[in-house]
């Protein structure tokens, strides 16, 4: 209970500090939406040139983008700031976090909770809502469950990717932008039907790393479409399982990273 109160205190302090510079906060709030707006806009622009990308129409593609952006925005707001870990490791700020009687990861996330990214989450879910409305989904209880779970599980999955790639800094302080290849790269990968990618690249990202089950497979199941790549329709329901596995791996990597951590001494 005391722990919970400490977390609440950390979180509300963030909200208060964000609210104290109102103009800056508003600019950042809208600027952050802009990033996701442009992601969606990019898809619209590409479809100006062609009626179908990878065998999917615009309506179908927007459903995939919707799940991906809603999940990514959620993960980016709640967990995305963990990618500052490399700075914390280099400057030694992490030492201060580790001596406190609270687990390090939730502390780090709440120390720097980006409230300014809230509107972006809303936008992601609005796109998803519009996409669902634009497609003729034959609703069954299973599909209703899936549309509720898919964006949340996408969020869990992206959070796991954020934590795993940030943990790299425990072993390699100068890892620089390498994490972005999997976090932002993963977002870009999941924003399009995976049938567009070359086979080895797709096998690596979609199946070995699990990005295919974030948005693409659930979208197929919702639409009742056969997978041009041959996976059966129930694989859309694998998204919670894949997210769970990713979260467990992220947890293990994070823990071993914390154990491995040696302060830089600065």
């Amino acid at each position, binding site marked *: 209970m005391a722990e919970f109160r400490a977390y609440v205190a950390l979180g509300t302090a963030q909200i208060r500090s964000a609210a104290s510079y109102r103009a*800056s906060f508003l600019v950042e709030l809208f600027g*952050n939406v802009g990033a996701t707006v442009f992601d969606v806009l*990019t898809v619209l622009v*590409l479809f*100006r040139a*062609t009626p179908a*990308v990878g065998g999917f129409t615009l309506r179908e593609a927007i459903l995939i983008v919707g799940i991906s952006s809603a999940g990514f925005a959620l993960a980016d707001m709640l967990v995305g700031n963990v990618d500052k870990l490399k700075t914390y490791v280099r400057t030694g700020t992490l030492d201060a976090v580790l001596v406190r009687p609270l687990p390090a990861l939730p502390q780090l996330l709440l120390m720097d909770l980006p409230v300014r990214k809230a509107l972006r989450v809303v936008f992601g879910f609005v796109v998803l809502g519009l996409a669902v409305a634009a497609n003729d989904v034959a609703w069954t209880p299973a599909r209703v469950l899936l549309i509720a779970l898919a964006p949340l599980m996408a969020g869990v999955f992206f959070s796991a990717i954020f934590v795993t790639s940030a943990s790299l800094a425990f072993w390699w302080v*100068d890892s620089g932008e390498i994490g972005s290849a*999997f976090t932002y790269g993963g977002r870009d990968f999941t924003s399009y039907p995976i049938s*567009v990618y070359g086979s080895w690249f797709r096998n690596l990202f979609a199946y070995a790393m699990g990005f295919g089950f974030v948005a693409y497979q659930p979208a197929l199941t919702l639409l009742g479409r056969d997978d041009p790549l041959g996976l059966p329709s129930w694989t859309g329901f694998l998204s919670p399982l894949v997210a769970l596995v990713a979260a467990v791996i992220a947890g293990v990597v994070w823990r071993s990273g914390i154990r491995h951590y040696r302060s830089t001494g600065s």
Partner: protein
Amino acid sequence: MDQRDASVPTISRLGPFRASVATFGALIGSGFRRYATYRQATLAGTFTNVVFGFLRCYVLLAVAEGAAGNMPAGYDAEQLATYVWAGQGLLSVIGIWGWTELADRIRTGDIAADLLRPIGPVTAFLAADLGRALHGMLTRFAAPLLAGAIFFPLHTPARWQTVPLFAVSIALAVIICFGCKYLVNATAYWLQDARGPIMLWTLGSGVLGGLYFPLRLLPDGFVTALWLGTPLPSLLQTPLDVIAERDGPVTQIALVALQLLWAVTMLLLAGLVQRRAERRLVVQGG
């Protein structure tokens, strides 16, 4: 460090012109060395460029497959692949993201020290940025292009003037980008905190510069207005169109000429804004 770094135009034995050139060269060198320190980060960044190259290239090729005549916005598949991979190579050469040094120095008041130096901040920061770009060109440009050439058929330039034009276009893009970044950062002279303008710049420059998709996919009139009315397409779209030979030889040269115009305009603007700022500046902390 050799003594050249300490040379100042007015007290040098070399004569004013050669001394300024030597000073400018020394500043470029120090900008280069600063980035050469982070070798591992260079490697990590290259890896990320290559991953994004694959992502963008596959998507654009899928668009080409469905487009009328397989030529979306007038690019064939090979030109699109060149567009993407050269774009990933140029990303950290042009350097549209991440430079907040001037804004930070204004906020902390360190700019006061810069104003005391015998070389104006626009010139000094430009030299440092050219050094950074040179380092980027030598370390970050080739690898993505090579990766692209291994996995995709790329467009081979058919005209002899394309490669030298491309080189000129890159240099101009670096200067234009520096001017834009300088102006965005300089808003801190008035706002103290330039986070808002920097965020708008980060958003706008990526999309309207041609990084996410070739701008020609947008309606023609809009693209022309963007090209003539803003420096943004001159950042990436122009060099990439030049190397992909999207247009005939005349338009190709005209686009680079337009870049030259923007480069001069942006540098003049940066100088003007700097002088206005100095007149009203109250340095933070007294």
